[in-house]
């Protein structure tokens, strides 16, 4: 009897072990949604493989023709996150990227897929890197409520744009043509252009002032764009966001003259 009980316990232990291992990498959790990597794999092979490749390393058939290059999932380095620079993204960050797409890149919005399907894709994408086993994401950055914009805030933002050397990459007018622009590469060594801040109201990873606040705070990992979280106070980041928001109109005005 004792022996039987012992065997049962070992069997239970094995079940815990296996379920623990599988749930670690093969699931995603976005709100109430639980994504399944097995289902995600089938979707990946249908929708994602052409750019991101069968190994998830960003070397799909279409990759040579894309600029910027498709993400290499094996490094688990992601541009669009809510977490600090260097941290893994949250599951919801990957889900949001799939849903929204990445502005000024080949990555489209996958909103036409079911929510469950997008969650399944997140679960599968996480299987490409062991980092999702070994590390946990840092706590996400906080975005305080946005103070309303004002000429003073824009002016302060302009001074910050100057003192943070934004213009060296993004150019004095934010057109993405600063003196260092031509030297920039992503982490894989491919040339990468600084974002044209005069192009519209969308940031790289969002389409609102909050999106700009988040991108400035987290930095775009894998690219030359750094995080400003430790250097600027939230109010200063909002000032910078308010200044950036004036750049498209200012460029239009300059062009019309």
């Amino acid at each position, binding site marked *: 009897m*004792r*022996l039987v*009980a*012992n065997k049962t*316990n*070992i069997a*239970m*232990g*094995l079940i*815990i*072990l*296996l*379920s*623990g*291992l599988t749930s*670690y990498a093969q699931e995603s959790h976005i709100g109430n949604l639980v994504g399944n990597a097995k289902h995600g794999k089938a979707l990946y092979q249908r929708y994602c493989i052409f750019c991101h490749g069968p190994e998830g390393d960003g070397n799909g058939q279409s990759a040579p023709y894309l600029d910027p290059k498709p993400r290499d999932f094996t*490094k688990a*380095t992601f541009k669009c996150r809510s977490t*600090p*620079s*260097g*941290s893994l993204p949250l599951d919801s960050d990957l889900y949001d990227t799939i849903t929204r797409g990445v502005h000024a890149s080949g990555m489209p919005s996958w909103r036409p897929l079911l929510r469950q399907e997008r969650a399944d894709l997140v679960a599968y994408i996480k299987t490409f890197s062991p980092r999702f*086993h*070994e590390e946990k994401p840092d706590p996400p950055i906080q975005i305080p409520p946005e103070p309303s914009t004002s000429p003073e805030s824009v002016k302060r933002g302009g001074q910050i744009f100057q*003192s*943070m*050397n934004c213009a*060296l*990459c993004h150019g004095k007018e934010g057109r993405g043509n*600063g*003196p*260092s622009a031509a*030297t*920039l590469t992503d*982490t894989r060594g491919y040339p990468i252009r600084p974002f044209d801040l005069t192009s519209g109201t969308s940031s790289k990873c969002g389409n609102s002032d909050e999106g700009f606040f988040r991108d400035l705070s987290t*930095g775009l*990992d*894998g*690219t*030359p*764009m*750094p*995080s*400003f*979280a*430790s*250097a600027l106070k939230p109010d200063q980041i909002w000032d910078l966001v308010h200044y950036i928001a004036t750049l498209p109109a200012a460029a239009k005005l300059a062009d019309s003259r």
Partner: protein
Amino acid sequence: MKSRYVSLAILAALAAFASGHRLTEVAAAVPDSSSPTSVSGVVKFEGTVPKPSPIDMSSDPNCKSNSSGATTEDIVAGANGSLENAVVFVADGLGDRTFQPPAQPAVLEQKGCLYRPHVVALQSNQKLNVVNSDSTTHNIHPMPANNRESNMIQPPGVPLDLTFAREEIAIPVKCNVHPWMRGYIAVFKHPFFAVTGKDGSFDLKDLPPGTYTISAWHGKLGTQSQKVTVSAGQSQKLDFVFKQ
């Protein structure tokens, strides 16, 4: 009763494993200084030292005013062939000894829009204190293969600490804002490493007696290795020669 404890223990171990917690070794060794040993020598460069090129810092007036006459630091060698900025370290032979990182941080300074030192070496999980002594804003962007990649902006006077969890020789670091800024961060899981200065010399002190592979690494010239056996209280001499 006993078997229940055994199975509980198995369960606990399995659960711990399953939940991803790694059982870490707590015991840590410190360099043995009771019977001091050392491996010392010089790293040399043979051949014609490439002429350093002047760096154009005109894109940022705050850099230009700081360091007129700055040149590239790809290969820096003295008149007698002593090679600067080489890292000499124990590559193998320490077995599974583990070492606590020192409490004292290593320091990487941005000065005159250059990295000082050009190559900084430290232990894994030791703090790297990044200092901006310039009057301009830098971004500090290490590009590791085996560690977390981070990229932080650093205005003048704002403190910043980085740590690297895993050994990596060496992590290139750059400032994207000032594209001529290039350096290296070498990370070791033990304290037996040295970066050569102007005289090219190194001294690895207080190694436990044993047989070691000692390597010399240089950012442009690659890696060389030699075997050496150290007995208690003994000093060994060892030179490295890089040719180009």
